[in-house]
């Protein structure tokens, strides 16, 4: 069965001939067709909407351009795969190019929320399918046979009745002269040849040979290097600068006071760093400086307060709690986390009188350019932002602070400059995963039945509650409340925002609650999901069947029901970013210490586009989730981060990594993202398995701290 799709081709596709022979089809990566009216309204019918293209040369070589920021989530490989599938060409004939990034050519170039592939799926398929249809039409005209009698395979058009076949390259120039069709037939997912296969990262060779792909590698004619002295504590601002020593140092060309920070500019990184470190800067604070200990008291106090406006309220939870036979209550807490992308923040800027040229790693080039235009008092079209490969994002590069800083420095010194953060700048400057805590409560009836569910969270500059999460939808009486305490410590989206904490707290609570109710944690979750399916209460953001599907898959693969001698198990299942992930963690005791040995994952992300890319995203997400849950914490004292670098902020290393086994649900549903969804349940799964192993529950991250305490007897 094929899907027939009609679209507004003028806003979406443009065919043209290539100089010297061949065919080029421009298209918009994000022009979805699921809600055509809306799309027609939102997309101007002009050719500059074309933000991507595929080219078919007369030798049959296919070039597909990928415009989305690549932060390591694999879209530069997976998105072109979708085009190649519908085009029906073998992957070995495909070349993937990074977008040339002209300022007006890009729509919604954002890497965030695991949405890249989900939002572009239809557009990518249509582009490939349209090109294929035009190539078929060109071949049919050449042979003077009906197009309907022609098929395609591996970059060739075939006419079975006459036994004729011809390579795409040979009809590409003729196809370029045809009208773009009004409708296109897409493949039945069952007929996919390329999607679902393991295709390697298209940039592997460049990466393993050390080619300059990253923002920090940018070098331009006349470019200078800048570093900055930023406020050493949240709440501090610049009072005075003495740059005498710095200016006398070799290689230093400028010291610029930009009110919020002081920039040192010179020829080489090391000279600039020494010059920056030699600045004598006085900082001052108007208000008392914060510390984690004080914030801890604020959050604890907030947990004791009702909210006037619950984030979600179903039924009459207050009444049920007041008359319940028993209330089962547990409180969880997790620290600030820094993003710590391996490539520290950096950006190149060349700001002139009437135009600005910028280049570097940013997850939100479009929005950053818009704000930059305002800040610089410049027209948007006079600012160009070129994207580089990014040495990790994890949410940090959604924010453009370092882009603005680079631009302001360049404007002040009237020269092209690359701003580089040291690791210490990067880690201490802020934009952290918020400091979060929450209390979960269950009202239990006289016969041990679960009657009502309540979560109340509090966070510094951030929310500790995802109010629509399961078991919302399964509970007749449900209450979610969220307090946000203001702080000068800046916070930000961090890989799977909110979920990265809730996946631990909620899943640890559900496991302990199941034990409290005398139920198997897996059976308990499935029972509740069946309730949500059969009699949903309020808004249901997840599909219970898909949730149950991954729970059963992970449980089956891990042999959940079969005890293994010496192995302690924990379970977690979580829905985020439109994907479902269940994880079983196994812990063993070695030398009286718990060791995480293995994680089994059941994943439903719809159609798996790139088996290799999908698997590595899930494994990486699990390892990242384990690492941060176990080892990572950032604390504040006198307004400043107490951790500055990897000697006192621990990230997971190879010998701490368990084996991870990934199983995907077979699906024909449109694909959803994978950059984030595997991370949240990892914290919950290991909390549960570790707790089983040591005989007491873990409520506070990072777990490695709690595990230092002596083990319980027995």
């Amino acid at each position, binding site marked *: 069965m094929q899907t027939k799709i009609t679209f507004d081709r003028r806003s979406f596709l443009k065919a043209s001939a290539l100089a010297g022979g061949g065919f080029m089809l421009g298209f918009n990566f994000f022009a979805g067709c699921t809600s055509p009216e809306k799309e027609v309204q939102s997309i101007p019918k002009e050719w500059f909407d074309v933000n991507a293209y595929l080219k078919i040369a007369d030798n049959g070589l296919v070039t597909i351009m990928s415009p989305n920021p690549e932060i390591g989530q694999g879209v530069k490989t997976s998105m072109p795969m979708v085009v190649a599938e519908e085009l029906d060409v073998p992957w070995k004939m495909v070349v993937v190019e990074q977008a040339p990034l002209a300022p007006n050519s890009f729509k919604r170039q954002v890497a965030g929320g695991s949405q890249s592939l989900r939002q572009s799926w239809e557009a990518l398929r249509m582009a490939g399918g349209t090109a294929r249809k035009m190539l078929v039409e060109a071949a049919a005209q050449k042979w003077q046979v009906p197009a309907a009698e022609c098929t395609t395979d591996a970059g060739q058009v075939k006419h079975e009745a006459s036994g004729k076949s011809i390579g795409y390259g040979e009809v590409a120039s003729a196809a370029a002269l045809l009208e773009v069709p009004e409708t296109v037939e897409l493949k039945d997912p069952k007929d996919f040849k390329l999607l679902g296969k393991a295709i390697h990262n298209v940039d592997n060779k460049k990466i393993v040979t050390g080619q300059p792909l990253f923002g920090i590698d940018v070098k331009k004619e006349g470019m200078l290097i800048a570093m900055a002295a930023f406020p050493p504590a949240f709440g501090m601002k610049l009072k005075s600068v003495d740059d005498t020593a710095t200016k006398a140092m070799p290689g230093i060309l400028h010291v610029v006071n930009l009110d919020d920070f002081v920039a040192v500019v010179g020829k080489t990184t090391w000279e600039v760093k020494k010059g920056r470190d030699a600045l004598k800067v006085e900082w001052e604070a108007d208000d008392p400086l914060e510390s984690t200990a004080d914030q801890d008291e604020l959050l604890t106090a907030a947990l004791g307060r009702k909210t006037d406006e619950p984030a979600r309220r179903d039924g009459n939870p207050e009444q049920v709690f007041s008359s319940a036979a028993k209330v089962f209550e547990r409180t969880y807490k997790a620290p600030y986390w820094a993003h710590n992308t391996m490539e520290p923040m950096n950006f190149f800027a060349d700001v002139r009188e009437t135009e600005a040229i910028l280049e570097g790693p940013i997850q939100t080039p479009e929005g950053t350019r818009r704000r930059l235009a305002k800040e610089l008092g410049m027209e948007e079209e006079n600012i160009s932002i070129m994207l580089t490969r990014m040495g990790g994002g994890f949410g940090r590069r959604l924010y453009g602070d370092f882009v603005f800083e680079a631009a302001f420095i360049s404007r002040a010194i009237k020269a092209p400059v690359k701003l580089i953060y040291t*690791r210490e700048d990067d880690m201490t400057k802020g934009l952290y995963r918020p400091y979060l805590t929450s209390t979960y409560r269950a009202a239990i009836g006289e016969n041990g039945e679960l009657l009502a569910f309540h979560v109340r969270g509090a966070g510094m500059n951030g929310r500790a509650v995802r109010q629509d999460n399961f078991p919302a939808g399964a509970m007749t009486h449900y209450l979610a409340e969220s307090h946000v305490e203001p702080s000068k410590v800046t916070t930000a989206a961090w890989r799977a925002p909110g979920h990265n904490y809730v996946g631990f707290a909620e899943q640890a609570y559900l496991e302990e609650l199941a034990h409290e109710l005398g139920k198997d944690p897996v059976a308990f979750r499935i029972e509740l999901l069946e309730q949500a399916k059969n009699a949903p209460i309020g808004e249901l953001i997840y599909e219970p069947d898909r949730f149950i599907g991954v729970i059963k898959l992970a449980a089956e693969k891990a042999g959940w029901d079969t005890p293994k001698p010496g192995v302690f198990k924990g379970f977690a299942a979580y829905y985020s970013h439109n994907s479902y992930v269940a994880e079983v963690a196994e812990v063993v005791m070695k030398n009286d210490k718990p060791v995480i040995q293995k994680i089994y994952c059941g994943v439903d992300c719809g159609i798996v586009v790139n088996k290799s890319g999908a698997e590595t995203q899930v494994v990486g997400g699990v390892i*990242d989730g384990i690492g941060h849950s176990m080892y990572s914490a950032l604390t504040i004292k006198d307004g400043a981060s107490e951790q500055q670098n990897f000697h006192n902020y621990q990230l997971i290393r190879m010998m701490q990594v368990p084996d991870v086994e990934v199983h995907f649900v077979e699906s024909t549903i449109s694909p959803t993202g994978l950059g984030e969804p595997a991370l949240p349940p990892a914290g919950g799964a290991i909390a549960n398995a570790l707790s089983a192993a040591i005989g007491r529950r873990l409520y506070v991250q990072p777990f490695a701290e709690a595990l230092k305490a002596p083990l319980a007897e027995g």
Partner: protein
Amino acid sequence: MANYTLDVNGKKSQVEVSEDTPLLWVLRDHLELFGTKYGCGIGQCGACTVHLDGNAIRSCSFPVSAVADKKITTIEGLSADGTHPVQKAWMEVDVPQCGYCQAGQIMTASAFLAQNPNPTDAEIEQAMHGNICRCGTYLRIKKAVKAASQ
């Protein structure tokens, strides 16, 4: 400031820098070899790993004055065209995600395998302990090191 003659990837180059300049920044700023990455500057993450007379070292923590008469190999010099067995294994196993730490990982692994061609899992974990990957590609790194050892 002083003059140094460095032997990098079999090529002699003259640089004029202060004697405390870390090898990392000489490679990146003066020799324009960008494959060696800055990650932490204190020898904790391994992104800047290069070979010094065949041994893996953290170039962020080695001043240029300490390396002037030694043979330095960077990721660019490991092979002319990505055909070193460790590079090939990295591609075969499809290791990189963001890719930033991988040059350092490869340089640590290749120096290690040159000295221990048939390591155990525990030996690999020990050897790779100084290299951080924030994307969490450790299992594929381990697999690639094993693949390259065979």
